[in-house]
């Protein structure tokens, strides 16, 4: 896979990232895998296992504005106990666009695509390959502002 600059798609790179990755999924294995797959591109990685925790994490990041607090990038599943991923982003309102978000979904239906577009988040359809995951994360990291529209399929 040929890439212009050093990116995850080339393989693991040294921690060059300055942002914090938030992984939200109820499957432990999935969180572990995503951490291993793309975690090295970030300063650090935080794992949450349901919608409520994701919500509070976003809230803390927003309002505890420590100067040293890194910007967030979110990778989240949709179907989780408690609030589902899209609901959380919905509740977050306009600011959702500020936090670059990748939403993993098994059913990218019309409805889901529409919501994703509205919220300015990137869709990643399951099952996905390692390559695709890394490419999507690359896109999100490279795009200023983070949101790259419908990057999944």
């Amino acid at each position, binding site marked *: 896979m040929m890439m212009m600059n050093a990116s995850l798609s080339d393989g*693991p790179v040294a921690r060059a990232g300055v942002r914090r990755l938030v992984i939200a999924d109820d*499957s432990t*294995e*999935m969180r572990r*895998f995503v951490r291993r797959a793309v975690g090295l591109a970030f300063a650090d990685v935080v794992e949450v296992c349901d919608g409520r925790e994701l919500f509070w994490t976003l809230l803390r990041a927003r309002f505890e504005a420590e100067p040293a607090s890194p910007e967030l990038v979110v990778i989240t599943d949709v179907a989780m106990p408690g609030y589902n991923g899209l609901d959380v982003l919905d509740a977050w309102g306009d600011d959702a666009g500020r936090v670059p978000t990748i939403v993993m979904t098994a059913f990218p239906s019309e409805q889901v695509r529409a919501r994703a577009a509205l919220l300015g988040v990137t869709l990643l359809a*399951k099952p996905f390959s*390692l390559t695709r995951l890394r490419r999507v994360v690359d896109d999100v990291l490279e795009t200023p502002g983070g949101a790259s529209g419908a990057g999944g399929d």
Partner: protein
Amino acid sequence: MKLVAKYTLVLVAALAAALAGLTFYRMARDRDHSEADMAIDHRVVGHVLQVNAVDLWADDSAPPDHRLAQIARLIQRANDTRGPTAFEWIPGPAAAIESHAIEQHDFVSRFPVRADDRDAGTILVRESLDDTDRLVHHGEVISVISVGVVVALSFAASLVLGRWLVGKPIRELVEKARRVGNRDFSGTVDLRRADELGELASAMNAMSAELAQALAQISVETEARIRAVEHMRHADRLSTVGKLAAGVAHELGTPLSIVGGHAQMIAGGEVTGDAALDSARAIDREATRMSRIVRDLLDFARRRGPQGSTSDVPEVLERCVALLAPMATKASVKTELAVTQVRAVIDDDSLQQIVTNLVVNAVQAMPRGGMLQLSADQVVAAPPDETDAVAGPRVRITVADTGPGIPEAALGHIFEPFYTTKQPGDGTGLGLAVVYGIVVDHRGWITVDSSPRGTSFSIYLQEATA
């Protein structure tokens, strides 16, 4: 032949009464006639005697005693001519006019003898009625005997004719009716008569043929209907399998990503040594999970055929809960299972289909999460709709959710095929209709209780005691 006997009895009784009446009337008339004849005879003789006696009495030339004696002699001489008639002379006051009377088996005529308003006496003419009586009696006996013979002959003739003309054909018709009652439409009644019984026979033959045809048609229609119901059940089953398959595909998305990702990392040399071992273990775990998910679905979809017609209810409920657990968890639906060890008269496949349909409906009714309660217990109950139902031991399986409930207006329709409140394409609307059909087939019933706080479906099935 009871009908003919009755008929005959009445007719013959009437005939007998008429004959008897006629005979007795005629005998009375005969008796009157003979009495009249006797009266005429008496008069003829009586008048002659009377006239002579009056002459003798009116003769002034002789003294009264002499005259009376002569009259007595006259009467005496009449008596000498020995016949059935006897003459008597009764001197003294006489009645005004002649009279006739019956006194003690004798016909008695009285003729007064009078001249110039002076009574001499009465001439009595007496004749015995014994002979007449005997004749009459004789006649009576003959009449009674002949009436009796006529009655007996008529009766016998009627019975024989009745049996032959009516009894036998009616017996044939009755047997034909019995055969039809036993669904045997063969054998026409062939009477070959132009009367009412012949008409009846023709009508019955025609009716029997029509019934045979109608029954055949019904049986064809019923088969067609059964096939249609089976198709509908099959369609629902496929639809359920489809729904579950969709759920399974959903489920497989995560483990597949993990397996593929780790495999790619290993193959690309990205991970080596212990890290590679970790990845391999992760692959193993997720592959196992996927196997379980797929196996659960296959277990459901695979037709196991008639496994005996009873089910272990807790086992089926647990299996359904296991299969649908991922779907429930994702929807934030908490599941509670409360079962007693009980067997129901229903095969595994059907019970599984019913419970799955109800559980899927319940979960779909709670998109924002809620509580799903499944329970099975023994109760004593009777079907609410039947008037002559007997309460007996039943297995009650309840599926309850905490969704928004079913509107009152819809409650009457929910078991109708294709009735659905879901979006088009989001469900066939067959689920509850199929549940209803299966429950009814197994001689059970289903009740629904719904409020804005939730809906609860209860299925009542027969308990298997074996």
